[in-house]
């Protein structure tokens, strides 16, 4: 298992370089001149412009730019934003907020998703099952920004149960509503996945054997059906953590959450390669680590799986 973990971490290296190179190139290839945008389209003294270009290595060819970026990275220097802030500082402010948001969303979708999925799976075809199925279909079909604005309006403005937008420090309690919106679509998938998995395992031979042994219904469900059914669900949840962190742009926009999504969106608009690559690079690491945790969990849930 140790070998397996080490190998997986080593795999991070090519993934990281590949991802950063790709992202760097995409930002480079985006139409528009970042320096011109910086001055707001007003004419700029040629000397100032040249100095700015040199400062951000924009006068270099693409490979040189990327190489210089990597060189700085080795010395843990993530570069500066166009407004002169250290990228490292900007990220250090934004990531904890998004991490909080994503973890709350994940907890929400895992808890309610598995709970509703199990009940629906055990009562397949009954009222609860049909209701949950229809509701989850609606959630999947309606775009996040619609759900977000509706909930913001109803819960935040009309009912006044929560702040419609998040304040600068983004404390836990203010993030409940955004986390709910962020996790809602995944929740629908978790419910459906759990339900399908449960109802499939209910008909497994070993479940019948467990019943024939004289076990109570409750024990059969908890010990014999649930653990086996969670295997695909865990895979989904792990992969989703990365998705929640990177995909929070819309939700963060609606609730004005000062997180990674907002940061990334602004940086892409400005063509700030240093910020974009750093944010995405960390997201890549989060993805890979989350998948590693899933694989380890997987093997814990299913002893047949070996680390290869």
């Amino acid at each position, binding site marked *: 298992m140790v070998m397996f973990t080490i190998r997986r971490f080593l795999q991070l290296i090519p993934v990281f370089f590949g991802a950063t190179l790709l992202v760097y190139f995409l930002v480079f290839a985006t139409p528009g001149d970042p320096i011109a945008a910086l001055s707001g389209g007003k004419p700029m003294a040629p000397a100032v412009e040249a100095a700015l270009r040199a400062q951000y290595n924009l006068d270099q060819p693409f490979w040189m730019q990327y190489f210089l970026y990597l060189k700085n990275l080795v010395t843990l220097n993530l570069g500066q934003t166009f407004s002169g802030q250290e990228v490292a500082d900007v990220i250090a402010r934004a990531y904890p907020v998004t991490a909080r948001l994503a973890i709350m969303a994940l907890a929400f979708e895992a808890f309610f998703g598995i709970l509703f999925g199990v009940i629906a799976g055990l009562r397949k075809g009954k009222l609860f099952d049909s209701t949950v199925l229809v509701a989850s279909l609606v959630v999947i079909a309606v775009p996040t920004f619609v759900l977000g604005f509706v909930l913001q309006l109803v819960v935040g403005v009309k009912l006044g149960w929560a702040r419609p937008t998040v304040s600068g420090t983004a404390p836990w309690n203010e993030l409940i509503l955004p986390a709910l919106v962020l996790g809602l679509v995944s929740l629908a998938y978790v419910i459906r996945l759990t339900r399908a998995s449960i109802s499939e395992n209910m008909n497994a*031979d070993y479940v019948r054997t467990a019943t024939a042994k*004289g*076990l109570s*219904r409750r024990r059969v469900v908890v*010990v014999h059906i649930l653990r086996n059914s969670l295997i695909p669900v865990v895979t989904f949840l792990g992969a989703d953590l990365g998705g929640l962190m990177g995909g929070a742009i819309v939700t963060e926009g609606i609730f004005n959450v000062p997180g990674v999504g907002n940061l990334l969106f602004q940086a892409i608009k400005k063509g700030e390669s240093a910020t974009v690559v750093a944010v995405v690079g960390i997201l890549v690491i989060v993805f890979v680590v989350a998948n590693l945790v899933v694989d380890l969990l997987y093997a814990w849930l299913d*002893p*047949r799986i070996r680390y*290869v």
Partner: protein
Amino acid sequence: MSINGKGTPVNSRSSRNDDAPLLEIRDLAITFDTQNGPVNAVRNAHLTIMPGETVAIVGESGSGKSTTALAAIGLLPSNGRVSGGQIIFDGEDITNVSEKRIIELRGNSIGMVPQDPMSNLNPVWKIGFQVKETLKANGLDDGNSKARVAEVLSEAGLPDAEARAKQYPHEFSGGMRQRALIAIGLACRPRLLIADEPTSALDVTVQRQILDHLDRMTTELGTAVLLITHDLGLAAERAEKVVVMYKGQVVESGPALEILRNPKHPYTQRLVNSAPSLSSRRLQSQKAKDVLAAAVEDIEESTPDVGDGAHPAPVHVSHATPSSEARKPAGKGDTILEVKNLTKEFKLRGALGKSSQFKAVDDVSFTVKRGSTMAIVGESGSGKSTVAQMALSLLAPTEGSILFDGVEVNTLKGKALFDFRRRVQPIFQDPYGSLDPMFNIYRTIEEPLKIHKIGDSKSREKKVRELLDQVSMPAATMHRYPNELSGGQRQRIAIARALALNPDVIICDEAVSALDVLVQAQVLNLLNELQEDLGLTYLFITHDLAVVRQIADQVCVMQNGRIVEAASTDEVFNNPKQTYTQDLLNAIPGATLLV
């Protein structure tokens, strides 16, 4: 006596009321609610089991035998219900008893050993855990459960039980898993054990060991057994009474040997005649009748019940020649497939990147004559299927050569390999898995023709019609899909597909093992007729010696990758030289009952 559970003397338990039946099923009717309305799976079923007695229900799949037994332990599928009659256990009517009461009875009073050991243990829990929870659920966990778990497992014949209890099901072989399931079924000393095809997924020799052990244990414990099986021979050997079910009804019941010797119902008669395990010793003449037809009637008449090689292989061949097609060279009875010193090694991945070599096939040599049938027999893991895969050129041998019609198969490439594929076709074991569920029957049979660019769409359709006719399926079948057909029908389609390219050799890898006895007999007869008509050569891979008796001219017995005995079928059956072969023969259930 270690057998006793929790200090309860076995004798006092079973002698409580020995005269009253332990289980009585009266006029039982079971209905399944399906989308097409209710289906009556069982009607008017009746059977009685006395304490300590073994009763077998025999029938083919779909006959309602398992459904009847499952009703007795309250385990009908959710869409099934008892729609009439009574189930009385130990004087108590449990037909519509509460969930609470049936949970009390399960494990404690009625135990179960299920059919498929591969799928009936929960893969994510250790064996010991799965035994322990049985004891616990039935109030037999006396705080010393670890020792008790090991005891229960070793009673079921599991060696080194204490260490084994810490392993997971996937670390067990099929036989060991079934022993664990028997341990679970008998852990709480039930008075009735329902054994639903307890060994049909296992090798014959393992089957025998397990059934012997089950016999001994239930006799010692005084447990009554309700044995469900499709194998009449096995039922007759193991049970005192046999109940024959057909299409949801009990058609005949009585003492086992009586039913076997003097079957009254036509279905039972057919069953007795086709049961391979029972009739193999005289089905030879049955086969002779089918294959040789009128031309050699005199031979058939001179053949007594015990087959004695009255129709050696050459009779087949000479008979087959006239109808053989022109593409067949003149040399009939010449060697078509020659395997020389075939060896296959697999790399086994060990811990920490170490790997070891595993010889799946070890120095195997044999030759197959054109128009004859060569059977390769062995238990699972003997390497027989690996030989088949190499003969199909689906797997490259490590060493040795395979000559097909004088040409080395290993080195074939491109066009030559493509042509070879046309001439050698497979039929696989599982007719459910080997047909593409998204292809209708027409497409399934037409596909090889299309791949080999034979004919245009019109001539191909004609060919498909012919092929369906050859395997006795109506032409209308071509528009249907595999899931609409029964197992036997699907296997006929698989045969038609294999025949589509007019192959010389058909390699049947356990081609009839998944089929019910009557269907199996039909398919074997069909294969025989086709061999007769088309001069086909079969390489028949099977674990079932009874099947070998019916179809093969020559036999190779494989054990641990090596051929331990090779001779004509009659020679192997009448005069087995190796103890392993003798064991295999002795393990055929019911083999000794009739002779």
